[in-house]
């Protein structure tokens, strides 16, 4: 069969790059209840397929997490990308910014 599989089609929902307010909401409150609009953004960001997807590796229990990326399958070792974080919230924010760039084509100019 030829043609694009449905899972490879771009999602119907697209992130409006001007909505940096949603990014700020996530930065302030990465866990728990989010606004409906932010939840849609997160659902999109968290739907990326495994090959090449971001993850974090806990390098020191409860103290240190390193940014990493899956390879093509979950049977291969992940690649450590370099940045190391002192909290999971910091790691969540770093990945959020990377995905913002990927899905909007624009960098998120918020530290």
């Amino acid at each position, binding site marked *: 069969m030829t043609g694009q599989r449905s899972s490879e089609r771009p999602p119907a929902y697209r992130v409006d790059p001007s909505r940096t307010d949603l990014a700020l909401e996530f930065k302030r409150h*990465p*866990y*728990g*209840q*989010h606004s*409906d609009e932010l*939840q849609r953004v*997160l*659902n999109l960001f*968290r*739907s990326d*397929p*495994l090959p090449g*997807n*971001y*993850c*974090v*590796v*806990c390098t020191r*229990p*409860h103290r240190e*997490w390193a940014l*990493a990326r*899956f390879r093509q399958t*979950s*049977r*291969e*070792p*992940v690649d450590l990308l370099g940045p190391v974080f002192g909290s*999971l919230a910091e*790691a*969540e924010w770093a*990945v959020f910014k990377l995905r913002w760039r990927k899905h909007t084509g624009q960098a998120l100019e918020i530290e």
Partner: protein
Amino acid sequence: MIEILGYADRLAVRPGMTIAFKVSCETGAARYRADIVRLRCGDDRPDGPGFREEPVADAAANGDYPGRRQAIDCGSYVRVGPAAAFDAVDSFTLSALIWPTLPGLDEATVMGRWSGPAETGFGYALAIDGASRPCLRLGDGVRVWRLVHPVALAARRWYRLLASFDSATGAASLHCEPVTPQWGDPVFRPTAGRCPLRPLSSGPRIADVPVAVAAHVVEGGQGTWRGAGHFNGKIEAPRLHAQALPAEQIGQILSTPLTGPSAASLVAAWDFSRDIPGTKARDIGPNGLDGDCINLPTRAMTGHAWTAEAMNWTNRPHEYAAIHFHEDDLYDCAWETDFRWTIPPDLKSGIYAARLRCGNQGEDHVPFFVLPPRGHARAPVAFLASTATYLAYANSHDHYEDPVAERCHGLTVLAPADLFLMQRRDLGLSAYDHHRDGSGSCWSSRLRPILNLRPKRALWSLNADLHLTDWLEAIGQEYDVIDDETLHREGVSLLERYACVMTGTHPEYYSTAMLTAMAAYLERGGRLMYLGGNGFYWRVAWHDELPGAMEIRRGEAGTRMWTSEPGETGLATTGEPSGMWRHSGFAPQRLVGVGFISEGFDSGSYYRRLPDSYDPRAGFIFAGVDEEILGDFGVFGGAAALELDIVNPKVGTPPHALLLASSEGHSNVYVIAQAETGANHPGMDGIESPLVRADMVFFETLKGGAVFSTGSIGWAGSLAHDNYRNNISRITENVLRRFISPEPFPSSAGTR
């Protein structure tokens, strides 16, 4: 990197019994240290109650031991013989029906008598080569000759295969045809050749080599064999004839009953529809050459003749004549024992572990549960360790392989154990995982290192349950520990000596015997504290002949990571339907008043008291608790967290049950479980749906018994807050104290 790991030959022991520990030093440490410890709390996070273990200083097993790396022989197959009838084979025909699931990887052996690597071994084998083509492989120990069929096989279709060899002439033939031809199929014609080798009369001796199905064998040392060249997929009716039969007879050769001219040369015909619950592959041929099913292949699988008129193998076994083999099946690592420990007669019941340490960082805890002596209770309350659930999650990969995992859990966080398991599939799978061929993993076993059945790991399963033992120790309550597998074997006699039984945080998996025992305990006046969520949910079975092996099928509904294939929801071990207990007519609400409704892994919430909590019947529960809001604290952000249960009178919540409190304020990550709604629709999340909540209930049973349920996995994570002085701890202690008192509860049935 994981430096050291181990497992024990049993999870549950009693005083006087001996437990054997098996250890592997993965990075080559020459020595390691072992100490027996009693586990109190496994939560080592800085903001948690703190990791607590107590060394058993005088344990005879404590000491230094030589290290070694131990190998694992994973992958399922059938092994037969050796046998004189096989030795008489000179010319032969191999035939089988196959349903490959991973054709085109490395060469996979369908069946044969082959020893050694596929490129240098000896013997004969029917195989699928690396280009997905059937082939006959012949080898004399030095050279290998192949006859390859030109047509590549597709995955997940049934094919008839036949390969023959005439030792007098060297003539070989190979035939393949789809059972059900489809439009677009290539033309399948037999192929033939002349082999220059004499695989059975020259080269190394073949007399010791077993016949194997779904793999071939290589020497494992000390006269043992291990599997290699594993086939992924289903195989049905593998047969061996001592004659080169013409390919045109393929239909007759694979027919049952075994008649016609080919029957005279039959050596063995394995019928996988026989003795499905057992461990044997039965031979219906003249020699009775039964085989052994190695490493828990999945039986009771639909065969090529499945009609869909039967949905369970017990109705029409001949339609379930296939076994599904996987390269990553595992029952028993079969490691050598490193040390043993006989449980002292006076050892306190509890959760223990052999703590293994090597090098600077290497550490592992091998947990085990010390029960009181059989027929005795040493405390009024028993903590029932959910070993069935622990096994279901054992070594799971689903928290990064499940496509929806990140949407539910947030960013994927990988611990060293995860990185290790990603590449070490020989440590076996959980009942949440997919095999490499994409099929669901129906089996789990405890005879292997289980890296998430450990303290200091994610707060789930055993490690979350250690919050309960920590709390019991903190309030000074004596308790015994019992476990699911023992409950399955011993029934209600394990429970009946206790005034109160306390579950763990997630008693999700129950066999029929376990559920029957728990119901009987309540019928007899027992008291049950169900301190968890998503309990009593899946129907499983333990293998009768293989201790520690547990089977599950995922039915047409239920929150699940894979779904059984059509017709394959019946358990091979018992013939019972698997899937949700609710669909076997026993919803969790019938037992404990509440059942699964929703899950979310972002943040927990609190309960709000409801009018029933002020009913005099509930007065003892809330003694000293003045707050309306309960559990707005804890390691999960609230006592109502992770997985939630609610009442449902339609499926069994008793009419006199008191709905004491419900949680509220859950996020939009929590959505209604798919089994609880007829159709998906907007507004199913924790913000919009009133169904997304945890219900706290209490009700009395007959003969003075009672049930208290919290409906939340997160409950135990709030017990230690504020040094155990909080309303969740108070409520739990109030219930426990009353439940262990001899005063019977008055029956309140029919009062509402």
